[in-house]
């Protein structure tokens, strides 16, 4: 389990992350969302033991992540995929496996299993990494981050710049990681994916975690439920769309008033849909407070 307590990072008097508390447990995916410059990447780097916090600690099973031994339990995927372009995938993974002191046979076995699972074809494994597509490079980077079977996986924008299909594939892979008992931190701008995958969501703004909880909890606290009403006659706030009058309403009282008008005008209510707030709206509201 990785526990961060009061993580703070300042650069020459400017605080980039402040008092960040995070708890990552096995079998759970935690989402970290926020605007650019909110401090997500700095926080992840502190969790990964790459950046020394100005104050606070990040510990994995009680051991500071700044210690080399603790980093064996962490798989870190940065936002970019900085690979060695002249190496092919197998050699690249073999090199990184050796840096974790994995036996050769184990490296071979895990490389084969990961690349197969991530859908990297045999012929692509033998091509220099510099010649692979962005999606394939990302898959190799993910394989590297998981090669040593870390207990905690820190993914910084894993689907950034990827096409929807590859993005969905990687989403599926994150689910598998959760099923395999990994503790996953997922930082992403792809909010629908965060909604889909995460058991808990942390909202970061200006270096602080301004809210946290399950999606339902966040919706309950921050977002506004909206209602879509469609009818055959006009009602207050409606717009004519084709042959149907439609309106997005914020409160139940407005819905009741609209239904009353439709009944009075002898119209037919075609649909009343309750739409929960999207994470994007929650993020916007949380960041505005």
């Amino acid at each position, binding site marked *: 389990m990785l526990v961060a307590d009061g993580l703070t990072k300042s650069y*020459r008097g400017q605080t980039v992350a402040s008092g960040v508390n995070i708890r990552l447990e096995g079998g759970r995916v935690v989402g970290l969302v926020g605007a650019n410059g909110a401090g997500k990447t700095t926080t992840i780097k502190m969790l990964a033991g790459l950046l020394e916090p100005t104050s606070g600690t990040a510990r994995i099973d009680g051991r500071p992540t700044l210690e080399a031994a603790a*980093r064996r339990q962490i798989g870190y995927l*940065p936002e970019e995929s900085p690979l060695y372009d002249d*190496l092919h995938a197998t050699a690249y993974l073999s*090199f990184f496996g050796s*840096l974790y*002191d994995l036996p050769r046979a184990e490296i071979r076995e895990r490389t084969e299993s990961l690349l197969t699972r991530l859908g990297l074809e045999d012929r692509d494994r033998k091509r220099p990494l510099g010649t692979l597509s962005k999606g394939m490079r990302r898959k190799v980077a993910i394989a590297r981050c998981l090669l040593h079977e870390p207990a905690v996986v820190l993914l910084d924008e894993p689907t950034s710049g990827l096409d929807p299909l590859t993005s969905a594939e990687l989403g599926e892979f994150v689910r598998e990681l959760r099923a395999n008992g990994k503790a996953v931190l997922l930082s992403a701008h792809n909010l629908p994916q965060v909604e889909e995958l995460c058991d808990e969501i942390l909202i970061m703004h200006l270096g602080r975690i301004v809210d946290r909880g399950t999606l339902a909890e966040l919706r309950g606290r921050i977002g506004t439920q909206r209602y879509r009403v469609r009818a055959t006659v006009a009602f207050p706030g409606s717009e004519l769309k084709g042959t149907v009058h439609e309106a997005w309403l914020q409160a139940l009282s407005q819905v009741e008033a609209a239904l009353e008008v439709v009944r009075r005008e002898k119209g037919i209510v075609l649909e009343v849909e309750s739409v929960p707030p999207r994470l994007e709206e929650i993020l916007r509201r949380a960041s505005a407070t």
Partner: protein
Amino acid sequence: MNRGALRIAGNEAARYVRFLQPRVLVAAALIGLLLGLSGPAVRERGLHPEAELYRVEIDPDSPLRPIVDSDRAFDVTEGVGLAFLNGRADLSILGENVHYRADDDRSASAARELELAARRWLDQALEDETDASAAFPIRVNIIYEARSLVAATPTTPTPTPTTAPGTNNTSAPQSQLVSRTGEKQLDLRPSQVEPPFPIRSLLLTFAYVVPLNFVSQLYAGSLLAERTRQRGLLLLSTPNSGAQILLGKSLPYVVATLAMSIVVTLAIHAGLVGFLAALPILAFGLATTLLIGLIARSPRELTFLLVATTVLFSTFLFLPAIFTQIHPVAFLSPVSIIISALRGQAITLGSFLYATVPLTLAALVLTGLSVALYREETLFAPRGLLAKLADAIHFRAPSRASLVGAGALAVPFAIGLELFLLIFAVTLNLRTAFVFFLMGGALVEEALKGLVAHAHITRSGRPAPPPLVGLLVGGGFFLGEKFALVFSLVGFNLLPLGRDALATFGIASSALLVFAPLLLHTVTTTLTAYGARRGRTALAWCVASLVHAAYNATVFLLLLPGVSL
């Protein structure tokens, strides 16, 4: 050694092995085969691209025939001018008369070559003459003598120049003070008179530096790529420390440099002393490359810094070494040690240490600073060079107490840079040299101490008050100077200037000034620290340097009453 470092080293070395793809190997094998096949023929006949360049038609009875035959450039045929008239020859020699076509470049060129061949032939004929006195009626003995930087020192006697009877001495003594006699050139013909510069040894010593430059390019390029492409981030996320990663990255280049220097040592017969003297050069070269590779922000900046440091470092190494046979200032450079080793001359331990210790210490400090930079926080930040240096210094000296050590470790750099200034100073006239050196020395010392003070004031969360920073950094620098005192005196004594000063003033009297430098360093560093606190480090550095220069001038005038500035 850490296994991770070895694996990183293996991967780094493998990058170059991967470059050796089959087609590269085939091309190399073909080139090797061609060289192998042509080798015996070249050995037998030699390489003479100029052979039979010009066609010469010569009268069979011409007395110039031996001259033409002595030069491979001429393809000689016998004739009385017919071939020349038909354009099949570039020159025609009839008796003692040489004919060429003035409007034909090739023919004119052939005539010039013939003139040179005639001179060479004549020189050789004189060489072969059994009566040397008849061939060379004038013979010369030259004795080069060291010259003092001081105009007059009555206590030192002037030796009488030794001149062989019946010979002319072409080198008149330039001053009254001679303390060390340079290499003698005896019984020479005028054409053999050469300046006593160890040109051959100097050129041989280049063999150490040339491969180092190639290695540096590859080394720095690899470090920069690791940063600009952020690959170092992934290495740092593994269970290996920055120091281990750097060790692994550096190992192949260190091994390659060492291997090449061993080969060079064996090839030029520099011996163990020469090899040992070359090590600080290689260490400093690699350490500088390492630091540059970690602070440069772009390939363009990397190239600029590498070229600039290579030029300055080469100047530092080779300029004083030119004077190896003439002036003790040469022993500021380890190259002088290598040259002396090549010439089979004795080298004192003092000279060896004087030439090698500052460079070695500087290499160690630069390596320490580089290791401090191999962190996520500093490795990828596109900050300025000085800002990164300040980051590294603060990382190494985060506490107030550690400022003392940082101040002390600035001393090897001060010595190195001041020696560098001294190299230029010896080429100037006395007055200009003094002013140049006093001001330059002050600027160098204040820059080094100021950098440490600036790093503390601007990087520390709770910086110490400027006077305390001044005392700690200035005190550290003072201690470093005192630690190097014995060593410095050895070096100082090598120089006529230092000898004169010590003779005039005395070491014991010099000790009276022991605490004056402490006060100076404290005051000037305090000034820079105040400047750093107000964001005006550069201005404060200038003021501190002026104060320091005034102090230097006072001390020198006290030490050398005969000198007026």
